[in-house]
């Protein structure tokens, strides 16, 4: 029986490093895009001259609805196949430049005659399959009319919006636009909707009710998706260009309909409509340049042996100077002097003696030998204490991040281990539910903390210290995305990883996320949405050794996407 799930999720696929020659060969077999929707004939038999700011004019002669000839500036005319779709007054058409790795996707507003042109090309980055793009703005020349002064332009007016989309060929996605340079998307049909992924993105305003969105799945397949959307009608027309995980060329136009799933907060100053993206000292002036988060560039993959050697050299445990804990709450005195047993479902039980505020001893229930560890603990809500510690000497450099609710004698442990089949310096985690045994506490027999989707769709900003704020988007029941703010408060770079959420009490959640195929960190936080503060433990290993540090930040609500309904298991559609 087929399921909607791939053998590997997007971040685990080893996409082929295609050569320029391989790409040229694949492009040569395709003369025009395909589409499940009928082509528009809006330009058939017409000629358009598109004047671009700072670029050569593009002159098009549309023979019919599938063939055109065009010239770039003074170059010779070239014949190509094309496809066009319309959304209200806006036309999107796309074509390749034969015998080159290049192509164009053009958006024309027939009312204002303004145009946005995406010049696209392969083999422009070290990963040749990653589509590059240069965006130009201009207008369609009108005989006898002066050139318009207005232009389409980048915008933050899409920032914070989210949509569910279903394309004409059946592809379903959830797409969140929480930043002005990145977006977050969930492949509901192609990848089963377990995880969200992030991609560098462009947002362009055509009018108050028409926008262009574009993303390139950098660090993955390199595929580019570009579409015009109408947020009121939740309609889109677009184009997808790139190579699948089987290196098959995808080049098709699509029409889609969807649902608006919400609007989360923006943090720019009032009056800032996003006509500039402040990138500090980044110089992004070369053709096609954009900010792309490429985590493995700065976090090289290590073997287990390399990790083991690095851990021998250095272990950092609850370092006092820690950028992620500038707003850490006070250390709790609750545990100091206590003795207890945490008994987890499945058989494991751990005895604890909390000798002081910073030292504990633990042993597996039944063992004779105690192990001493450094720990920190925080009482997030009355009677709810989180603490974390390493299991020194464990072969996988294990760590526990534990939340105990003493009012109910319940415990949840996030058991972190270092190393996965993919990377030696990547954490893995198991969630253990159980009870507390200590004098005076009678634990429940059946009740346990439980996984929850109450956070799904929510966005919460976290300020770790002055100048260091990120926003979490709890994007699916099994993934979490993090967004770093630009200096003007706009959302900037974004990435995403597997996650889960456990409800401890009302408005009190234990969350973890794994920065898989990234820096390998396991982040565990206890989110208190009443005090708007978190506490937690950050666990990672790399060339500098092992790190187990505290996390502490202040929160602000940033809104919610109403997306939980899209993640409920449903019967697979019968396809003819």
């Amino acid at each position, binding site marked *: 029986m087929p399921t909607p799930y791939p053998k590997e999720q997007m971040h685990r696929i080893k996409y082929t490093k295609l050569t320029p020659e391989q790409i040229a060969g694949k492009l040569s077999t395709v003369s025009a895009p395909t589409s499940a929707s009928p082509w528009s004939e809006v330009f058939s038999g017409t000629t358009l001259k598109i004047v671009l700011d700072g670029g050569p004019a593009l002159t098009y002669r549309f023979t019919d609805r599938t063939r055109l000839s065009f010239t770039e500036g003074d170059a010779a005319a070239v014949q190509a196949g094309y496809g066009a779709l319309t959304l209200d007054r806006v036309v999107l058409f796309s074509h390749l430049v034969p015998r080159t790795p290049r192509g164009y996707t053009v958006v024309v507003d027939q009312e204002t005659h303004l145009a946005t042109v995406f010049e696209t090309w392969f083999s422009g980055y070290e990963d040749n399959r990653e589509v590059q793009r240069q965006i130009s703005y201009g207008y369609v020349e009108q005989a006898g009319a002066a050139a318009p002064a207005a232009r389409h332009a980048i915008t933050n007016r899409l920032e914070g919006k989210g949509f569910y989309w279903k394309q004409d060929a059946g592809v379903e996605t959830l797409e969140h636009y929480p930043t002005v340079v990145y977006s977050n998307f969930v492949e509901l049909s192609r990848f089963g909707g377990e995880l969200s992924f992030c991609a560098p993105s462009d947002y362009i305003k055509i009018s108050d009710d028409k926008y262009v969105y574009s993303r390139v799945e950098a660090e993955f397949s390199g595929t580019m998706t570009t579409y015009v959307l109408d947020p009121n009608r939740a309609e889109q027309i677009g184009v997808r260009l790139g190579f699948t995980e089987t290196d098959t060329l995808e080049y098709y136009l699509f029409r889609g309909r969807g649902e608006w799933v919400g609007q989360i907060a923006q943090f720019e100053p009032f009056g800032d409509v996003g006509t500039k993206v402040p990138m500090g000292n980044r110089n992004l002036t070369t053709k096609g340049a954009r900010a792309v*988060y490429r985590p493995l560039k700065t976090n090289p993959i290590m073997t287990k042996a390399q990790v083991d050697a690095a851990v021998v050299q250095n272990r950092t445990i609850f370092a006092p100077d820690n950028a992620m804990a500038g707003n850490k709450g006070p250390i709790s005195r609750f545990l100091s002097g206590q003795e207890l047993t945490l008994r987890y479902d499945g058989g494991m039980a751990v005895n604890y003696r909390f000798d002081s505020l910073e030292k504990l001893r633990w042993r597996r229930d039944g063992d004779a030998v105690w192990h001493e560890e450094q720990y920190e603990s925080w009482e997030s809500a009355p009677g709810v204490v989180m603490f974390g510690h390493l299991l020194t000497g464990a072969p996988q450099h294990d760590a526990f991040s534990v939340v105990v609710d003493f009012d109910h004698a319940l415990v949840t442990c996030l058991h972190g281990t270092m190393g996965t089949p993919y990377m030696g310096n990547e954490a893995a985690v198991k969630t253990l539910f159980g009870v507390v045994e200590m004098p005076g506490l009678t634990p429940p027999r059946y009740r346990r903390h439980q996984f929850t989707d109450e956070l799904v769709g929510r966005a919460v900003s976290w300020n770790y210290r002055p*100048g260091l704020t990120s926003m979490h988007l709890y994007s699916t029941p099994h993934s979490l995305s993090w967004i770093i703010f*630009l*200096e003007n408060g706009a959302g900037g*770079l974004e990435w995403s990883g597997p996650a889960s959420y456990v409800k401890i009490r009302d408005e009190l959640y234990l969350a973890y996320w794994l920065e898989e195929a990234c820096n390998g960190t396991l982040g565990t936080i206890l989110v208190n949405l009443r005090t708007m503060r978190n506490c937690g433990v950050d666990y990672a290993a790399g060339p500098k050794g092992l790190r187990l540090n505290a996390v502490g930040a202040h929160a602000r609500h940033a809104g919610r996407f109403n997306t939980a309904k899209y993640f409920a298991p449903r019967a697979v559609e019968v396809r003819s």
Partner: protein
Amino acid sequence: MSLTSSRRRFIGATSLALSAPLAGLGASVAGAAATSDPLPDHVGEIRALMHEHAKRLNAGPDGFGSLDRIDVGADGRTATATLHCVVEAETAIGPDCPLVDMARQQGGGIVRHTEHGVFDAVLSKRDGAWTIERISFRATQFPP
């Protein structure tokens, strides 16, 4: 020049703060220098030199310059200068962690702030032109 923090550095010369006019910054001439009858262009030259130095470091005048001093030695070949200024500085966020790394990749990972302070300079006249021999920056908690 000496800095009060190893992480502090003066930001590039593109900040809006640099657009503040420096020409209005005044400087007093010490009595000792006045009695040695320094030529007015000594003060003007030194002031211009100090302003140029401050401008390169993205510093602007602090206050109306009433506390600034230029003392020209009796020989007319040595001088000291004190310039009150506001410096736009940035401090790198640390220690390194993935979030800070990500912020740096988008041109961030720093905290910008303004700092009141004083440039103290020792100057000498060589080949007919004033030259800064030594200059240091002292952060002050408050404006002059």
